[in-house]
């Protein structure tokens, strides 16, 4: 891999570069990609993944509750918005986890830009 070259910023080139790099990594046996995140993980990796899933769930639910509570305080609409946003936050958490597990990794929206973005290995280890 050469450094500091001024490569053209076309998506086509990026895609080819990625393909070449993946092939190189597959050959040299130091694959830096976790695949689609659905493959079985073992030991610390599994624990890290589980911790991360938990964080995502709790964070999104917490944000939902905070929004609902804030709106309730502001509009004085009883507990209803809190309840509504609690469920909405839970749904957002599940969405996040789904994206994490299917390798889309938190990208908002259902498609990733550039269909074959290489997977990041941030789900590994104790994350």
């Amino acid at each position, binding site marked *: 891999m050469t*450094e500091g070259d001024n490569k053209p910023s076309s998506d086509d080139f990026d895609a080819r570069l990625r393909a070449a790099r993946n092939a190189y990594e597959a050959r040299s046996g130091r694959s830096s990609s976790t695949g689609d995140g659905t493959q079985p993980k073992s030991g610390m990796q599994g624990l890290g993944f589980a911790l991360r899933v938990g*964080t995502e769930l709790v964070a999104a639910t917490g944000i939902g509750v905070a929004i609902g509570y804030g709106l309730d305080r502001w509009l004085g609409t009883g507990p209803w918005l809190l309840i509504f946003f609690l469920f909405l936050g839970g*749904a957002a958490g599940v969405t996040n986890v789904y994206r994490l597990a299917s390798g889309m990794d938190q990208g*908002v929206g259902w498609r990733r830009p550039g269909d074959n973005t290489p997977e990041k290995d941030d789900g590994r280890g104790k994350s």
Partner: protein
Amino acid sequence: MAGPLEQFQIKSLVDGPVDAVAYTNSSLWMSVTVVVVTVFMLLGMSKREMVPGRWQSLAESMYEFVGNMIRDNVGDEGRKFFPFIFTLFMFILFGNLLGLIPGSFTFTSHIIVTLCMAMFVFLMVTLVGLAKHGLHFFSFFVPSGAPVALYPLMIPIEIISYLSRPVSLSVRLFANMMAGHTMLKVFAGFVFGLGAVTAGVGGILPIAMMVALTGFEILVAFLQAYVFAVLTCLYLNDALHLH
């Protein structure tokens, strides 16, 4: 003997004009981190040898590591964010590592510090997206391919999902650092407890465990700095290339 959570206490070293403003041990270790990172990079870069020595190789590998991370995850447009992400990565990494020195203070184990950094990243990424795409940025929250009838439900979910980013980003770093350091301290407590009962012999086991845990904590220090930086890259990527 100090409890496992006492290491996280904020102590004021120099009192400020008001109660809320003070130079604390947390600030002290942040300053130490900045100085150490600066010295590390300056020492590494000062000679500029063709064949790098040890320092220069370390500094260069850090540079290349972050550079590759940005190129892989953001692409060419990410190049101008290199200074930001490099600073972030080095600050967190050295903060984590310096926190492992016995008697030091790990500022990344405080959620206020990590949340502040995560909020800064979040705001910056949002502003970058807004500056680049204008109001088109908000099409970000419209899920593509979903039926229009579901939009009223999906858009709030997307917005909450987006807003939960800084929280999960900061909680991940803070929880990992705090849990690791608490665990180390708890095992250190076992050394005294078991050692006193069994005339010193039983203390060996927890010490062995602590050695393993310390190694593991070094790994976590790297990993968490990496995760923080890589997620920043991913968020930048999302903001720069809307789908």
